[in-house]
């Protein structure tokens, strides 16, 4: 089909006029099982050569080049070492250009390859290679990385140099058992290891600013500030050194882009196909121009976005380096190119699709433990935001908003992670486009609610214009694009474990000699947490609430200590000069981003097991204090026995005879709100090490599975090691789902919680069976459901559309379902590549089936 034939002009030619009609339907629950989904032959050709996996291979070049630079500059300040390391990589790492592509760039290795970041810790990499935990094995069935003997030897050769000098070493050296006992390294009350072995990421560079200045303009900015530094002031030398580092990486970035320009020219020289030759020469011109100057066309701009972002990855080792408000910062180029005939809608559509696939080719190395905890790999978290309101409060929807969504349906791969911002004034057409995209069933896009997110950001002292201009980063988090270092997703608190300790006098419910800490804890009469009394003795339910509150404070203290230690380690060892140059405020303040150079500095850990904790409190209140059906001791015993021998009680607590969150039942919903508010209360506004403060989040992504694996049974009817509840969702145990009243009840229950208070973001995962969404009744009811969620100040939702049978089938016959994309939480992934536990968790989510 010719792309041109697709051009849609509705009868009255009203805006929007994207390539596809706004109400184009692609089907319901069809996911990725469509050959040649794009109208563009080039895109289908590229897709056919794209491997649909997050597995990859290890590339040693970056690690070697960084090491080389560090060795060359032994006495230099850390930030200069970092800058020289980055510069050496940008100038010397291998680069590639592939057939058919219109946008070039990568991470300094071939497609699906992943650089290594010894700054964070090299031992685990080399150990995993040696112990068979890096490549495919029974221990690592997905997100595995192959490597050559040569790679292994190369990395082995630099191991000693890094030993004792990594973030991991530093953080551990400043922490004591008191902080670590409840952490990932201890009993798993909280996890704070996300940024020990990798960078914090979770931000987006300021594209508007980059487009305005270009690398040349940034260079000028650096030089101007260098000139003005008064080196006699206490921090003068520090500032000057920082600016020196900025200059080093700025020049290297230009050189890096020029290397691509040269390579494209070389390719063009030997290209026989005339059309392709022309294309390559144009790409060459684009690159040459943007290596220094601000972009002039849509093509140059999108090329710049990709390369600038790739370089952030090369430097920082973080994920969720997001693409900001794509439809906003690209629109001026779009409009101008259409107006002056430089480009066509169809060609720009094709560029967007190419760009999306380029993102999928990137990859990131993760340890087998991190893969188990966070469930999924790939580059991870590169969100791209569209829609919403403008800085001055008007609806921001434009043609690119639609094209960005169409592009996803045309390629159906899980990058980037699309976020559509909705608000009270979102046009009907965009809602239809959003819902039709969701109905395809790839899990994209997620929806975000401006009407709660913006006030929530204002409550964190973000200025109005910055709050209105927020992007979504990673899975869940609202972010003031280009001005904020949010340390989003830096930690997780298992609220259900806190409740367990609260009702068992600070001891784990299964306390005994099998415990890893027994000798220094239980055996000598100690306890893991703080003594808050026991359910055996509480006389009123208020005592339970009070115990939970006190226990929460105790654990938040420790959680924050560990997070601060990790933050300090980053400041000392891994400043990020290249990233700093692209974030507003760093050059201006003469301060690296890790030191608090940007305008907004947050740290955002999440509360996990909201539903589990809420149902736990409801169960205790109803059975022990109101019905007096059982005593507190009996309930604790049943949990301690993992419900064995207490089967009727187990069935009862899992039945609808007990109040459960997710059924529009105030009894349980209010207690769930209390559970979450208590977490928020003890985290919000605590100061962090960068001059900012902590922001609580309310979601789990997939950490609920990992926390579950560390926790014994719990009062609401969970057996030992089952996942705790997912994000803001209701409880699903092996015995059954606790939410049984359908989607409207879920919508209402979940929005009784205070989303705005979770300033680091919230998430509700919905799962629909295709039959519930078919036809225009299905579509419009779905829109109404979303509208009500928005109106009731729900912040964020994501959707899986697949019938349960399909998921179970896919689990049994993975080979036949390689293309099946599902929404995990915060992102979509290939279902068959997820762990068995996570697959079960997704299958277990209530299918909102009502046909």
């Amino acid at each position, binding site marked *: 089909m010719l792309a041109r034939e697709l051009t849609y002009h509705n009868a009255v030619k009203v805006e929007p006029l994207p390539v596809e009609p706004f109400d184009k339907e692609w089907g319901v629950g069809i996911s990725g099982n469509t050959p040649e989904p794009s109208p563009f032959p080039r895109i289908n050709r590229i897709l056919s050569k794209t491997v649909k996996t997050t597995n990859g291979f290890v590339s040693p070049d970056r690690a070697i080049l960084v090491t080389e630079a560090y060795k060359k500059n032994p006495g230099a300040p850390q930030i200069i070492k970092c800058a020289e390391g980055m510069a050496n990589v940008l100038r010397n790492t291998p680069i590639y250009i592939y057939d058919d592509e219109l946008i070039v760039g990568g991470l300094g290795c071939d497609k699906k390859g992943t650089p290594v970041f010894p700054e964070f810790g090299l031992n685990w990499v080399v150990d995993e290679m040696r112990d068979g935990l890096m490549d495919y094995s029974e221990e690592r069935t997905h997100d595995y990385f192959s490597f050559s003997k040569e790679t292994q030897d190369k990395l082995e050769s630099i191991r000693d140099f890094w030993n004792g000098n990594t973030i991991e070493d530093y953080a551990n050296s400043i922490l004591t058992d008191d902080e670590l006992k409840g952490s990932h390294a201890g009993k798993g009350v909280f996890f704070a290891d996300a940024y020990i072995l990798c960078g914090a990421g979770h931000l987006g560079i300021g594209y508007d600013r980059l487009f305005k200045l270009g690398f040349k303009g940034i260079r000028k900015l650096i030089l101007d500030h260098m000139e003005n530094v008064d080196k006699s002031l206490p921090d003068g030398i520090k500032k000057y050194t920082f600016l020196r580092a900025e200059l080093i990486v700025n020049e290297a970035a230009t050189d890096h882009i020029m290397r691509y320009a040269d390579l494209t020219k070389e390719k063009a020289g030997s290209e026989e196909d005339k059309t392709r030759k022309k294309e390559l020469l144009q790409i060459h011109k684009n690159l040459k121009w943007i290596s220094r100057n601000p972009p002039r066309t849509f093509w140059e701009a999108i090329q710049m976005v990709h390369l600038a972002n790739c370089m952030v990855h090369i430097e920082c080792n973080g994920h969720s380096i997001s693409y900001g408000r794509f439809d906003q910062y690209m629109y001026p180029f779009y409009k101008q190119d259409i107006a002056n005939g430089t480009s066509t809608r169809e060609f720009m559509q094709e560029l967007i699709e190419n760009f999306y696939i380029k993102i999928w080719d990137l990859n990131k190395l993760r340890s087998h433990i991190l893969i188990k905890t966070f469930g999924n790999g790939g580059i991870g978290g590169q969100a791209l935001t569209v829609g919403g309101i403008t800085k001055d409060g008007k609806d921001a929807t434009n043609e690119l908003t639609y094209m960005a969504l169409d592009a996803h349906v045309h390629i159906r791969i899980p990058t980037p992670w699309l976020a559509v911002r909705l608000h009270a004034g979102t046009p009907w057409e965009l809602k239809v486009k959003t819902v039709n995209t969701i109905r395809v069933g790839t899990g994209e896009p997620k929806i975000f609610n401006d009407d709660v997110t913006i006030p929530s950001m204002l409550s964190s002292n973000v200025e109005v214009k910055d709050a209105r201009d927020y992007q979504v980063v990673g899975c869940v988090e609202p972010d003031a694009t280009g001005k904020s270092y949010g340390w989003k997703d830096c930690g997780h608190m298992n609220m259900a474990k806190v409740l367990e300790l609260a009702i068992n006098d600070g001891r784990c419910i299964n306390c005994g000699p099998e415990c890893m800490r027994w000798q220094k804890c239980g055996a000598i009469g100690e306890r893991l947490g703080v003594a808050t009394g026991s359910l055996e003795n509480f006389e009123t339910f208020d005592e339970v609430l009070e115990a939970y509150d006190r226990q929460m404070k105790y654990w938040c203290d420790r959680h924050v200590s560990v997070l601060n230690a990790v933050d300090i380690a980053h400041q000392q060892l891994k400043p990020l000069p290249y990233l700093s140059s692209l974030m507003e405020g760093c050059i201006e303040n003469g301060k690296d981003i890790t030191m608090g150079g940007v305008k907004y500095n947050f740290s955002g850990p999440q509360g996990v097991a909201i539903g589990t904790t809420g149902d736990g409190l409801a169960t205790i209140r109803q059975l022990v204090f109101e019905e007096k059906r059982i005593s507190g001791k009996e309930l604790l015993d049943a949990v301690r026995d993992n419900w064995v*021998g207490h*089967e*009727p*009680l*187990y*069935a*009862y607590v899992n*039945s609808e*005879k007990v109040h459960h969150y997710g059924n*529009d039942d105030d009894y349980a919903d209010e207690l769930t709100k209390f559970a979450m508010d208590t977490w928020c209360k003890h985290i919000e506004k605590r100061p962090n090490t960068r001059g900012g403060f902590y922001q609580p989040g309310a979601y789990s992504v997939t950490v609920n599975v990992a926390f579950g694996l560390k926790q014994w049974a719990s009062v609401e009817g969970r057996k030992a090691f089952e996942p705790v509840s997912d994000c803001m969702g209701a409880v699903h145990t092996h015995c059954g789902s606790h939410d049984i*009243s*359908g*989607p*409207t*009840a879920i919508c*209402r229950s979940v929005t009784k919680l205070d989303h705005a208070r979770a300033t680091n973001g919230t998430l509700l995962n919905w799962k629909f069976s295709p039959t*519930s969404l*078919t*036809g*225009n*009744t*299905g579509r*419009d*009811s779905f829109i*109404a*459901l979303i*509208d*009500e969620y928005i*109106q009731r100040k729900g912040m964020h939702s994501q959707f899986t559309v697949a019938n349960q049978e399909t998921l179970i089938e896919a689990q049994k016959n993975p080979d036949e379902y390689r293309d099946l994309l599902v929404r995990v939480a915060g992102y979509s992934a290939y279902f068959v590549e997820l762990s068995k536990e996570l697959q079960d968790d997704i299958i277990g989510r209530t299918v*909102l089936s*009502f*046909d």
Partner: protein
Amino acid sequence: MKITEDGEPYGLITNIQKYTIHDGPGIRTEIFFKGCPLRCIWCSNPEGQSYEQQIGIYPSKCIGLSKCSLCINSCPRGTDTPIKTEDDRLLSLQEIPECKNCFRCAEECPSRAIMIWGKKMSVPELMKVILEDRNFYLKTGGGVTLSGGEVMLQWEFAALLLKACRDASIHTCVESSLYCPTEHMEKVYEATDLVITDIKHMDTERHKEYTGVGNELILKNIKRTAELKKPLVIRIPVVPDHNNSEKNIRATGEFIRDVLGNHVIQLQLIPFRKIGTEKYATLNLPYPMGDFSPPERSVWEKNLLRLTEIMKEYNIPAVAGSSQKMC
């Protein structure tokens, strides 16, 4: 009409389903009334047939007598209990007359292996649930649908509930076989905005064979509904080899055109699916179409679409399935 000891009228309700989107316009809360005078052999809600509370049995959910036995221990008949067990598990419960006033086992059973079909609910109790989703109705032109079972069997209570909905400005829909005295129907219609009904067969003999009753009263009431100018949606539950002959479909089309004067806002041809079989088992009832195997879906869907096209020849707004908007 039945009333509680406190003098409050109540209805016997099998189920309340929120977010139904196929039984009337928009998002609706559907209330299933218990009791039905018909016995359609393809019925997928057998728990709605009897106008009495009934015990439903799910042996697979039983957690085992040695671990529980709450049912047997609670049964006032002691060793003479009608609860039958096998291999440490609940097997069956052949209700005896005394059960009707007891149901203690079902109340005790923690796992819903024994449960009660049918709940007595008053208008205020139902309105509480209905009002929870009012915003969803407002957004979609939705509301409440009374369904069954057969609503008209509890016509007085239905009329009360509908009145309460209308007083609360909630759109009302009644889904009924219309096999009922015309006066009852008209009483119920006083606060009804939309009617959904079936034409199961135009040949009264076949109708009787499949549903237990002839079609005369039903057709008369449908005609009356049209005369009253009630917005009307008609469904044909198309069951292969039973009522899908071109002859029957054309006869239905002619009836709609000639007798109802095309006073129908939508005609839905609903594909038969073998569902509800497990519910028959819980009630100790045989599934009447147990031996019937429906044709392949692909063949069957084509057939349904063809029949839909035939209906359009009569200028009837016919659609296959129920996922296209009614109004």
